[in-house]
């Protein structure tokens, strides 16, 4: 069977499964990225706060999560999560055996927790790039904290954060390949399944690599568009 027959959409082709798996990769990476954005903005807020305790907690989080391998975090959530679920099952009268956790939730959570550390740094950097005078002006017209955040801080922080967020998104996308160790059928796992049943590992992993390249290229283009759009009101030096 030729390569194109193998990866085609015919009766024996693996085209559809591979495309579906690519969709799963994008889905798990996007969910993780959104979890990371939520958690990351909270951590950025902690790191920018005046309280010493919150600041050191935020610093600790980003230092630890950026200093240990992502694979360890995924193992922690996968095995730790199932241990917790087994314990809960025991309370409700279960046998206390191994309860497996949903792979998608574990994956999205693990990617989110890791990318939160990177996103926190991006948001913090973007906030410090914000002109002090803008906040003073908003306060002087009597905006309260929520309104100030919604109208002045959030839109501008987002504008300065877009290039950094693009980098973090690429990281999240590549981390999603590691989620295959939990058994979630994303691109890499699907390639492993395919090469196991056809004995053509190179064809499958090569296709996976090409699909990853397509996804990263499209997202680079998308983030560039978003950056251009967000900067349309700014004069560039």
């Amino acid at each position, binding site marked *: 069977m030729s390569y194109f027959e193998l990866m085609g959409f015919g009766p024996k082709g693996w085209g559809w499964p591979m495309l579906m798996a690519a969709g799963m990769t994008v889905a798990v990476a996007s969910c993780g990225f959104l979890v990371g954005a939520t958690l990351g903005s909270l951590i950025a807020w902690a790191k920018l706060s005046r309280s010493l305790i919150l600041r050191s907690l935020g610093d600790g989080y980003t*230092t*630890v999560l950026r*200093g*240990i*391998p*992502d*694979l*360890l*975090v995924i*193992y*922690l959530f*996968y*095995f*730790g999560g199932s*241990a917790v679920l087994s314990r809960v099952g025991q309370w409700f009268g279960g046998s206390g055996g191994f309860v497996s956790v949903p792979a998608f939730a574990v994956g999205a959570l693990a990617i989110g927790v890791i990318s939160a550390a990177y996103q926190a740094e991006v948001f913090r950097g973007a906030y410090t790039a914000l002109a002090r005078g803008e906040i003073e002006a908003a306060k002087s017209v009597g905006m309260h904290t929520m309104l100030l955040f919604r109208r002045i801080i959030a839109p501008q922080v987002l504008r300065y954060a877009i290039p950094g967020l693009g980098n973090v998104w690429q990281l999240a*996308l*590549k*981390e*999603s*390949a*590691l989620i*295959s*160790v939990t058994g979630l059928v994303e691109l*890499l796992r699907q*390639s*492993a399944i395919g*090469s196991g049943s056809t*004995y*053509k*590992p*190179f*064809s*499958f*992993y*090569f296709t*996976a*690599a090409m699909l*990853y*390249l397509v996804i*990263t*290229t499209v997202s680079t283009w998308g983030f560039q568009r978003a950056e251009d759009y967000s900067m349309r009101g700014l004069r560039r030096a």
Partner: protein
Amino acid sequence: MDLAFMAEIFVKLLEGVPLTLRLAFSSVALGAIVALVLAMMRMSGLAALDWLARGYVFVFRGTPLLVQVFLIYYGLGQFRPALQELGVWWFFREPYWCALTALTLNTAAYASEIIRGGLQAVPHAQIEAARACGMSRFLLFRRIVFPIAVRQALPGYGSELILMVKATSLASIITMMEVTGIAHKLISQTFRAVEIFICAGAIYLILNFLVTRLIQGLEWWLSPHLRQPPEVLPRPEAAHV
């Protein structure tokens, strides 16, 4: 939390540290050579070489490292007869060499951009001055361009080194027993994920802290011109001359 258990785990995990460090340092050292070649190709001014290097960087930065590891370790098995004929099968059969190859090729792509940035940051006036003194191209590179570029690129290279220490954990997926590999084995034996995670995480944090310190020391040693000069006390009698 069981401290005796954690101490025992910590000692077991420490056995993986030499392999982690060996993978990280050999891949960064070999990768630096490949990266230098790639950076030279980018700056050669020859379109063919430039695009070749661009393509390499695009592919290796745009795909996950784990895919590259699998492509080399499992993927090349598809061409086993051809590789055996060439006499290189023994190399691609070993998980250690496959992991090292993947890590080297991957770090080379990232490092070539760091090196290129460093080389391009060399002030033009410095090169003109060296030419005016009549330095040959090689001497100019060795004495002027390279030392300045290394100083510029060092902070970026430091973070690449940390990324590589973290990336060695992927070797555990192709059966290498470095720190993460041992941690995975211990977790599936004992199901005490939290304690083992804390111990393994601590080991990586210590390693990365030491790497950061090493790079900082190197930066300090390479930039004597930026340090405060030692204070020279004026000689009092000079005023009376």
